């Protein structure tokens, strides 16, 4: 379970996050939405321990993200908004390298890599050099990297960007499978697409969680409408 309490962050004098609090239970897929500049990416970077917040607390299953960062990161998978990969490696070598880096035991790495590749539909590209892949394919490789070791918390920034139609269609299946072992947080602007697989929307507005909309309570279409309504006025 991921718990976020009173998170605050500002770039210089500009306050981006003021008081963000929420929690994500195992099996939940939470979609964080908001206008451009609302602080979605910053929030996920904080959750990925890439940025230290000005205040607040982040914990996964009781492990504080900033007090015990290594233990926290061991339970976390992160897909960046613009994921970077080592272009000179093959896909398989890159995933092997990442698995080794995350401390996975040698004997399990092959199985983990194969499973993640199958889940992200990159099995046929395993021997290709990363530099020969398209942007969308690279994103799939980065996704495979993020969920390869079955993290307790999966952070996917702008998840649907760059994915083709078929992958978007199957994104729900991928995330549902990931949700079996993770608390999943997804950000993005494709609210309608996200509504197909998220269980809850969190609308970030003016540095706080303005609204939490559970799809099981209001249904997908109503949730999308409510999200759009909640986002109105942002940035004015």
């Amino acid at each position, binding site marked *: 379970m991921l718990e976020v309490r009173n998170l605050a962050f500002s770039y*210089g004098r500009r306050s981006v996050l003021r008081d963000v609090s929420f929690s994500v239970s195992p099996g939940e897929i939470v979609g964080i939405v908001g206008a451009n500049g609302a602080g979605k990416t910053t929030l996920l970077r904080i959750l990925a321990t*890439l940025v230290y*917040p000005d205040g607040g607390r982040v914990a996964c299953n009781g492990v504080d993200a900033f007090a015990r960062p290594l233990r926290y990161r061991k339970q976390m998978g992160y897909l960046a908004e613009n994921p970077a990969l080592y272009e000179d*490696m093959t896909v398989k070598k890159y995933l092997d390298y990442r698995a080794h880096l995350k401390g996975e035991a040698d004997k399990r790495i092959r199985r983990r890599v194969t499973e993640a590749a199958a889940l992200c539909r990159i099995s046929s590209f395993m021997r290709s050099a990363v530099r020969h892949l398209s942007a969308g394919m690279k994103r799939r490789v980065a996704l495979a990297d993020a969920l390869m070791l079955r993290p307790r918390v999966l952070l996917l920034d702008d998840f649907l960007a760059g994915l083709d139609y078929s992958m978007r269609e199957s994104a729900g299946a991928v995330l549902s499978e990931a949700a079996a072992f993770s608390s999943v947080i997804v950000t993005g602007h494709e609210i309608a697409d996200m509504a197909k697989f998220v269980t809850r929307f969190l609308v970030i507005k003016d540095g706080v969680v303005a609204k939490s909309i559970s799809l099981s309570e209001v249904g997908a279409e109503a949730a999308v409408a409510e999200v759009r309504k909640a986002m109105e006025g942002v940035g004015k």
Partner: protein
Amino acid sequence: MSASAVTFKRTIGRMRNSFQTALAIASFLAASGALFSYKLVSAEGTASTFVELWASSVSVFLPLLAAFLGMDIWSEERRTGMADVLLSSPVREREFVFGKALGVFGSLAFSAVLSCVITAECLSWYAPVALSEVRILSFALSFAALLVQGGLWCAATTALSAAFTSAASSFCASAILLAALPRAIWLSLMAFAPSGRMAFGRFPLDAHVEDCAAGVFPIGLFVVLISLTILSLFLASKKISSLKYCGRVSRKHLREVALEMVLSCVFAVGISILALRFDFIVELPISSHDRFSPRMRQVLSESSGKVIVTSFLSRRDPRFRPLARNLRSLKRLADHLGGIAIELQYVDPKWDIGPAGRLASKGARDGSIMLEMGRRSVMIDLADSPGERDLVSALRRLIVPLQRKDIRWVAGHGELRPDSYGSWGMSDIARELAREGYRNLVLDLAAGDVPQECALMVIAGAKDDFSRVELGRVNEYLKKGGRLLVLMGRTGQGGVSSLLPSWGMRPAARPITGAKTLSGTDVVVPILADHPISSALTGSRIVLESPLVFDTAAVVESGTGADRIEFTPLAGVGEDVVAAVVERGSGAGSDLAIRPTRIVAVGDGAFVSNGALAVRSCANRDFLLNIVAYLSGTDAMGASGVEPHVLVTGLDRNSRFAFTMVLALALPLSVLVVLSSIVYFRRRIR
């Protein structure tokens, strides 16, 4: 597998697949090869070894290579966003930093090994004799010194790369801070603080490598290098972790990080100062007996008694360490030979007040070596940069007090003078003769007859003709069993050239043919081996500038018994003799007390001038010393032409050019082609 090992493997793999790395390694090989070639030529005749020259050539370019290999080690990760991917992994920043620095270090070490292999290989083709003195321990120590320095360069480059997002900026910063700035500071000190030159000595990092090659292991400097390496790695990991502090409140954390960095710098500098203050030195027995010449062995083994050798020099003086090393080697040799017993003492003029006062009362100066045997003592002033020769001469003087003999240098006809310190002067060789116990005096033939006590008359490169009176005085001197050394002027005219034919010497007006040349104008002439002067110098060569040749076809060997003139070539190629000795009276019976007349003529008047002796190593000096010893009636002094530890490559001009081209061009290009091909095929397979 630890995260550091994974990162190391990744870094090495990345470099292995990069044309950039292949180019960097080839450039490094070319630059260090060119410098080695230059140093090899300059070091001809000095007490340098292949290992020292190679290590000091490589150490100059190691910082640049490290800067190039490590310039994008972090900056590229930051630019592409890969740093985020890495930092979101459950790995400490310091493990990434260590792994990456280790990767750069691995490539650096590979380049150094490659450089050593191709240099040694190239040397084995062109000058195998230069490799004969290589000792494994010496090589291992100097390589260890290079690696420790390389470790610092890699760590510092990693730290600087973490500070920039542009690889070019990172490279510039590294190149300036690691390669250019230290040498610029040192050169500035050399240029603007001449009084401090002795205190600063050689560039410390070059001296460090050469010290290690000679078996001196300065623990203090190693501690400094290692602490700076750890500091660099620490700063790099702090810089990487500080990337996370970009929020407003995080400025407080940033200040804490900055404080940690400053404190760590202070700590490292403190450790460095302490390490240098208590500079412990471990000396390994690399320089052993065979660094001493046979002459030294002869002096030590054929005498007995106890000699106290005192170094009267501050321990902080840069000359102290090599001096102490040589003295310890000398003691070991003396113990080994079982002749003279040597006792070593080290007296610091500032700290050892009592012994210093005793030495000062005996006339010893600060910066000297005092040799004492019973009541006799001899001082060697270190300001003259003495070598082994001086030590042998001093020991000889101590053990066998010499009867001083006068050498008269004829003046007044444009001769080279023993008191002239220019490159055309003879002050160096005159000083050498003075150390051997001779007294150098000037002789004016116009003023009167040659004095009775003149053991040897020297006419060095006379340009003007002698007057009839002067020729008559020389002739009279020779007839009485005089000894004459004639160093011929360029033209073969002037001086006593008109007198020489009657004594069996005929200078011919033609150049020598068939001799090798080093610079184009000089000739390398082998010494012939059937005379007391030259027999000990068998295999050695003298180098002369456009020498005159003596006509052997017109040699007069006439008379019988005491009147017989015997001509013996000393040096030459085929029929062209450039140095010869004639002797009259040697055929007399041993029961007749006839002092034979001896004349030695050499075809180059300046072959032992200061300029000639400073330029290169050859047997010129020993050849002259042997001539002087023979003419003045003492035994031949030089037992061998070149001391055993002196570097002699035997490369002439063409071989040097070919050697440089192969080492600095052909082999690096081959390495570039091979490495690039590997990269190309690895990429193509994918």
